[in-house]
């Protein structure tokens, strides 16, 4: 066994060749697990707003809002993320005339991909509330938008938090796909170290899997705790 190889490269697994300086993003050459976390956070941030828009549009009664949202959600949920990444990587030059860097491509694809799933979560969260909530809000004189804004969404968003964390976990796992385009992140560092050392495949991949597991398992347990806590304060039909 060659665990010393893993120990020597452990800092590389964790943050790659990340450098801090005073030029704008302040952080350059992100890599390793840090890069995976940054990509997941950026992705979920974009996906939240896209998903919110798509979910609410899908709930709307106006067909010109509903049909684009349904088409977007169903299409994205029907394709593999890897294919979306490759497809967008080759679509970008056609659209904007120059190729995008791999990091931006993948983060953008994570936003689009996760946005569709978040859209379904938003829709399910709103539909799970008792119908009387909306009716009472409308009955007390609020408009449809106001009822959504002040009555439905505050409750629905709170109930959605556990599914949202689950989606974040699955996005964290999906960041591993960025390594296929050559973005430096946890899986990529694994491939690099494995290919350079050649004798420590088992140790390297167990370590990488362990790091991902640690990250995802903490979040999963957190979401389970949240679910148990939140279910006590839900508005119910009966």
């Amino acid at each position: 066994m060659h665990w010393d190889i893993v120990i020597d490269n452990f800092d590389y697994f964790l943050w790659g060749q990340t450098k801090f300086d005073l030029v704008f993003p302040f952080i350059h050459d992100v890599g390793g697990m840090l890069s995976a976390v940054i990509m997941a956070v950026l992705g979920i941030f974009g996906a939240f707003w896209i998903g919110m828009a798509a979910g609410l549009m899908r709930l709307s009664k106006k067909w010109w809002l509903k049909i684009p949202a349904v088409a977007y959600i169903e299409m994205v949920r029907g394709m593999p993320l890897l294919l979306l990444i490759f497809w967008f990587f080759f679509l970008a030059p056609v659209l904007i005339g120059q190729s995008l860097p791999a990091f931006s491509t993948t983060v953008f694809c994570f936003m689009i991909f996760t946005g569709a799933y978040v859209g379904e979560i938003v829709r399910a969260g709103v539909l799970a509330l008792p119908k009387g909530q909306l009716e009472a809000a409308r009955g007390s004189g609020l408009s449809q938008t106001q009822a959504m804004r002040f009555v439905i969404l505050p409750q629905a968003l709170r109930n959605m938090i556990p599914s949202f964390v689950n989606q974040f976990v699955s996005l964290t796992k999906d960041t591993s796909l960025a390594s296929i385009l050559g973005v430096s992140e946890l899986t990529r560092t694994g491939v690099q170290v494995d290919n350079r050392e050649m004798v420590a495949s088992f140790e390297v991949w167990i370590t990488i899997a362990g790091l991902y597991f640690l990250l995802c398992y903490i979040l999963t347990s957190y979401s389970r705790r949240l679910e148990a806590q939140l279910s006590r304060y839900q508005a119910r039909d009966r």
Partner: protein
Amino acid sequence: MEYNFQWAKMFSGEPAQWMWEGFNTTLQISAIALVGAMLLGIFICLMRMTPFKPLQWFALAYTEFFRNTPLLVQIFFWYNASHFVIPEGINEWMNDLYYWFPGPFAAFGHDFVGEWVLFNVELITGVIALTVYTSAFIAEEIRAGIFSIPKNQLEASRAVGLSFLQGYRYVILPQALRIVIPPLISQALNLIKNSSLCMVIGVTEMMFQATQIESYHAIPFEAFSVALMIYLAISLVVSFCITMYNKHFMIQVMY
């Protein structure tokens, strides 16, 4: 930069043939892995529900570990590092393997080439990775389905005079299976989508063939668009079937 669309190239000659082969391989690995994952998933779920504690812990660790690590890492693990886990004899057999299934055979007065599935080490490791990854999800789905039936139904069936197994056979499972089947089908869909990751180790499935066409014929956008349409068609057809199924059967679940 001017992009020159050449859609016609995609539907004739080499690209079309490669795409068709890739489509077949995708269906093959998905089918084999789905059968394996169902069996393994049911087995893990049974382990999780036995009263014997160590088995429960093992099944819990199995599901948690494989659900919380990326499939890509698992594929790399099975491809690069499996010789620490799989016994040496099997590993050597796998590495030497190059076998067309079912092989040449004669039937109905014809000679068939029989080159339908090419079993080689890439396909087998890809299938192992997909099977193990999906089985963890399937085990969890089945368990959730069984636990979604209130416990007092089992108690009531025991009180009526059914034995423990009869209670499961006639009361719990008929309801639980109805609940479990739609999520299982969407797991199967996920499996088909996830099988695209097998391209990183060189399984010649649809994504791999699309990248191949991209580099041989320089029509990246067309190649990936066609692959995308095929994946989309598969999942739209299946999700339409799930919707129909839900409309017909979900009403009958009462509890």
